[in-house]
């Protein structure tokens, strides 16, 4: 079970039921549960979509695509069934927020799926959880069964004459499946290999039917927007970056944890005040602000608003809201090597720039970290990574290349310190601070 933390600067929306027993349906009802969906049932589909558009809710999985706009792409008429798919394949290194939603507020995810289904005219919703989250699959299955037992889902929900089936589906270990088209392949019982787009899932998705795919946190935000109003949610954040988001803070800070902060909250303040500053009073080396796939920021680059646009302006991304903090004892080459080992392992091998690029980057960085690097390798790393960007079916290639480019650009002297058979200058330092 994951531990909960708290800070006065938090604005609890998605996390407001955390730690309050809301996995129990009666308790959830006491805490305004299933009110939002009943409100939505009395609204026209377009009115629901407009409310979400007004809220400026953007995808919390990483891409930050406006949710209302995504829903509006689903055709009104469709010969094939339409689907809603909740992406709970949370796997981006650094990210551990959806886990808390499934654990503490599973019905909010169901309610989000229901409202999305009302908005796009779907009769079937799937909640896909990563295979490692077995205890959460059990929690979600119970929540779904409880909701069926009360008639909240199934036939004629809340007497509306509308039907909606909701199913929980488990993965079996694959980062790549978090990508939306690979997610659909996996749900269809295949290898999680991405599909070429267009057509986008909103038009041709699961089993060829129009499909809305949203991250779990995105969907869990929806009921709160329906109850509080789109404008209320939008006002919490910054322009075009509506609401709050769950920030998973990890690495070398005093108080790591998942905090819910308004979009646009200052990144530096997040690290030094909310998370209690750098572990052991050491110096900050860098911040990876959105999961391991985003470019790193130097200490002098973090006095910025943490929202989609603020981080894009700083040359990085908000991603999944995972803030990974590195202190001065971590060797950047070692860090880069670990990042690329991950992407090389997770590359599905479907397209060559990603399959070959991640492998060559891994080989180069491994040799480099062991002290067998030559000057030319440093430029080669950037050359390899540059040639992966934008040349792959899905964003995994970019996710592997972007951080590596940023490490080389921003910490070049440290790469140079590894040359000519010199051992890593920080290896022993890092070991000495581990408790």
């Amino acid at each position, binding site marked *: 079970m994951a531990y909960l933390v708290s800070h006065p600067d938090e604005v609890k929306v998605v996390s407001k039921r955390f730690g309050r027993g809301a996995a129990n349906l009666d308790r959830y009802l006491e805490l305004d549960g299933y009110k939002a969906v009943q409100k939505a049932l009395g609204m026209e589909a377009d009115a629901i979509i407009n409310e979400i558009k007004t809220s400026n809710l953007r995808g919390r999985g990483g891409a930050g695509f406006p949710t209302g706009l995504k829903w509006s792409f689903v055709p009104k008429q469709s010969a094939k069934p339409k689907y809603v798919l909740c992406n709970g394949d949370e796997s981006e290194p650094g990210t551990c927020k959806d886990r808390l939603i499934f654990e503490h507020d599973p019905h909010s995810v169901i309610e989000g799926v229901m409202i999305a289904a009302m908005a796009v005219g779907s009769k079937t919703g799937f909640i896909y959880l990563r295979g490692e989250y*077995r*205890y959460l699959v059990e929690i979600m299955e119970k929540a779904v069964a409880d909701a069926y037992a009360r008639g909240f889902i199934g036939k004629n929900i809340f007497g509306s004459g509308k039907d909606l089936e909701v199913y929980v589906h488990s993965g079996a270990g694959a980062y790549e499946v978090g990508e939306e088209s690979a997610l659909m392949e996996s749900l269809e019982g295949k290898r999680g290999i991405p599909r070429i787009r267009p057509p986008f899932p909103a038009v041709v998705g699961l089993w060829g039917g129009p499909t809305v795919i949203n991250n779990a946190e995105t969907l869990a935000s929806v009921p709160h927007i329906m109850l509080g109003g789109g404008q209320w949610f939008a006002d919490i954040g910054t322009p075009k970056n509506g609401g709050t988001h769950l920030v*998973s803070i990890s*690495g070398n800070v005093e108080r790591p944890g998942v905090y819910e902060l308004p979009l646009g909250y200052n990144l530096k303040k997040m690290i030094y005040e909310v998370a209690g500053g750098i572990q052991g009073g050491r110096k900050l080396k860098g911040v990876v602000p959105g999961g391991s796939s985003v470019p790193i920021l130097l200490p002098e680059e973090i006095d910025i608003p943490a929202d989609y646009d603020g981080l894009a302006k700083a040359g990085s991304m908000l991603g999944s809201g995972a803030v*990974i903090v590195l202190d001065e004892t971590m060797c950047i080459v070692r860090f880069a090597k670990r990042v690329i080992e991950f992407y090389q392992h997770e590359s599905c091998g479907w397209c060559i720039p990603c399959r070959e690029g991640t492998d060559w980057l891994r080989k180069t960085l491994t040799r480099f970290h062991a002290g067998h690097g030559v000057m030319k390798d440093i430029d080669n790393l950037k050359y390899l990574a540059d040639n992966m960007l934008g040349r792959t079916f899905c964003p995994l290639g970019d996710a592997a290349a972007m951080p590596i480019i940023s490490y080389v650009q921003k910490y070049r002297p440290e790469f140079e310190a590894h040359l000519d058979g010199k051992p890593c200058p920080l290896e022993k330092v890092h070991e000495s601070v581990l408790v």
Partner: protein
Amino acid sequence: MKFSDRLEKRFTEMSTHYPTKRSVLVPMLLYIQDEVGAVTDEVIAEMARRVDLTELEVRNVVSYYSMMRTRPIGKYNFQVCTNVSCLLRGGEEILQHTQKKLGVKNKQSTPDGLFHVEEVECIGACSWAPAMMLNYEYHENLTAEKIDELIAGLKKKEEQ
């Protein structure tokens, strides 16, 4: 092969969720593995028959997912994360300590068939790093002492 009643029930129930037969494949294979210990040749043949695929097509799915294995492993699977958030808090050292303590290398089981150690990618416990999974159970904010206690506890449980 014959499914247990529990697996049979799950298979029948899950088959109603999707418009195609093969859609049950990924979760179903994992549930079978949990009971049988591995996705063996018999499991593959049985699932292929049930969802109208060739064995090769099922094998193709099995090989993609990191949690599926075709051979059984030790009873207690220590899956230690060493990805970045864990790396920053000593995940690699935890992995090394566990391997040393059990006298095995990565992806090896102890000769008595009790323990298995595996280095894994991010398990979604980043804010509580370093972390590991022990047969689906999360263990977080790990220290070498906690690993020792876990191992000792399991050994004791097995002796009884």
